[in-house]
């Protein structure tokens, strides 16, 4: 029995060492951001949503892209609570800046880089991720392979900037070095049948991959400036998503 407890201890210690080697660092109390994601945060190491890491968000179609943008804006809003500037790098931007205010971001604190050719886009994302002064970097790009993602991951391990990569209609989904891969799709808002109008934004959040974490699927609402996970319930991944996860 005592041996078994020792073993668990040793496992945990070794795991911690591996995490440090992999570039994972527990944020200090002052750097810690409360995302209010509740149960979703438990999927990651240390039960914290990983900042200073690369998140990959995949969407197909404009409706999904809008939902993904909403989720990203929600995360950004939490990260930029203490001020700071965020960079939004894209080629064909459709984001409407005033909408960011609904997610607690002052749109004038976001600097948009509208890149003309795709070749420069990845270079600019990498260069921005190296800049410690930024709160976060959003990159809207299509393709990303293992080597490219590895470079970005190495950049953020140095600078501790959070990178959100939104991949719209990617042609291939390869294995990447990103910390997490998400897929967000819109869900019909729930509303009392007698009530007119539209309800709060509601999404189906799929965490397809999480480094050192557990993938999962939840439903989430955005209500008055915070994530609402009262409706959060884990659900089983579909076959198609299993394939994506295998990537």
């Amino acid at each position: 029995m005592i041996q078994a407890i020792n073993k668990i201890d040793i496992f945990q210690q070794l795991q911690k060492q591996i995490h440090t080697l992999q570039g994972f660092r527990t944020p200090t109390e002052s750097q810690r951001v409360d995302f209010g994601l509740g149960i979703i945060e438990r999927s990651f190491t240390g039960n914290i949503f990983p900042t200073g890491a690369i998140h990959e968000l995949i969407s197909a179609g404009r409706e999904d892209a809008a939902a993904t943008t909403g989720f990203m804006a929600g995360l950004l809003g939490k990260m930029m609570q203490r001020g700071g500037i965020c960079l939004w790098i894209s080629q064909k931007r459709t984001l409407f800046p005033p909408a960011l205010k609904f997610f607690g971001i002052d749109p004038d604190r976001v600097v948009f880089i509208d890149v003309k050719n795709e070749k420069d886009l990845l270079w600019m994302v990498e260069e921005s991720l190296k800049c410690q002064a930024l709160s976060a970097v959003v990159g809207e790009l299509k393709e990303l392979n293992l080597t490219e993602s590895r470079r970005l991951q190495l950049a953020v391990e140095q600078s501790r900037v959070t990178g959100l990569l939104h991949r719209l209609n990617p042609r291939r989904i390869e294995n990447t070095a990103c910390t997490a891969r998400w897929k967000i799709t819109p869900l019909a808002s729930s509303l009392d049948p007698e009530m007119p109008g539209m309800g709060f934004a509601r999404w189906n959040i799929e965490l397809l991959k999480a480094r050192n974490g557990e993938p999962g699927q939840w439903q989430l609402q955005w209500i008055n400036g915070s994530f609402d996970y009262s409706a959060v319930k884990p659900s089983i991944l579909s076959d198609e998503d299993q394939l994506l996860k295998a990537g």
Partner: protein
Amino acid sequence: MKRYVSIWFRHLITDRWVIRHPDLKDTAFVLAAPKAGRMVITAASADAEKQGILSGMVVADARAVEPNLQVFEDKPGLAARLLSALAEWCLRYTPIVAVDCDSGLILDITGCAHLWGSERAYMKDITARLRGSGYDVRAAVADTIGAAWAVCHYGRITPLIEPCKQSQAIAPLPPAALRLDAGILERMNKLGFYQIGSFISMPRSILRRRFGQQLLSRLDQALGQLTENILPVCPVEPYQERLPCLEPIRTAPAIEMALSKLLEVLCSRLLKESKGIRKVLFKAFRMDGGVQQIEIGTNSASCNQQHLFRLFQLKVSSLRPDLGFELFILEAPVVEDVEQTQETLWNISGSNDQAEIAELLDRLTGRGGMDIVHRYLPDEHYWPERSIKTATSLLDKPQTKWRTDRPRPVSLLPQPELIQVSAPVPDYPPMLFRYKGQVHKIKKADGPERIEQEWWIQDGLQRDYYCVEDENGARYWIFRLGHYGTNQPEWFIHGFFC
């Protein structure tokens, strides 16, 4: 003690023609331009001048003297263009070069000649190079512009006038060497003043009474008692650094070394004066006379050497050295005051962040172009496309608040796109709409929010916006343009809600 060089191009325009058309060498030809209905000679080659054909003659008269005379049409303004190009070329000898009338240059060489060893070697280099490229030049050096000009045009003994020897040097020269008006010269000729020396010691009041103030001031200018100003052809940049090279430089690493050396000097000077650079030009002068330049701009004033170097590094490859560069010049035409920020220990948030972000943006614009960075501020318009305006700098603060009282989509189409709808009742949201060949059944809807066209900006119909949700849960922002009435109004999709 100032020193000036005067260079006189005796046949500037015709020499240029010979350089362009080598078969004209050693032939008598003239350039002519129409004047009062006649072709008047504006420039004559050296061979033509030997036969007595001078500029100002009518072509018909000149043809009588020399029947085989070749006549070409003169282009106005050629001399000025040529001289300013030559003046720019002469910048390698001194930073202050001025164009003199229509056939010469004045160089302020104070403190420059020792770089060539001596004034003799300096003058020899200038004249040898200019003669080598085909121009018939004379040059002279003296303490004053007037004396240098006089010796250059009329001197017969030596072009090198030693310091304080200008009065002896100009004494044997004719009065024309003083750059006087034709009327005064004629009068002096009539009175028998053939040399400057014959009136240089006369009482000033007599000279003034006879010949006017011009003679005295020209004489004073030549003797150095009255300062004469010149207008430099290329105003000297206040923030400029030069680096001449012993050996021509051809490789990129060597160019980068030269660049970082220049940047170091410039940045340390700017730092002392607490200024920062907004725009920097790096000029490279090639052996064959070509000038190449690269330019960078910054989003906020900076005197950070490494940062500026990195911005240049992206562009160094665009320089084409060919035979090699012999001189580099770094100038900062636009500088601004910067506030010195203290080095912060905790670089998490603070004023240093601003500088770091500005540097990042400089790098990004250096690669992608100046127009890729956008930042938005709220504008007081309800019309969605006009509700934002672009900010001019990183420090602009919003004048009004960002509005959140009305729903706005996260994703807005650049142009509203036409959709087909079926609406049950006018002024109700539609039941279904067709967008890109797909039918969306509307389950929930909000609205309408009427946004009127701002008539003082643009004419047009008002929009009635609805937020709708289809059976899949996707949310859209659609609008109807105009009323139901005689015409069926059109519907558009304008955005996507998250």
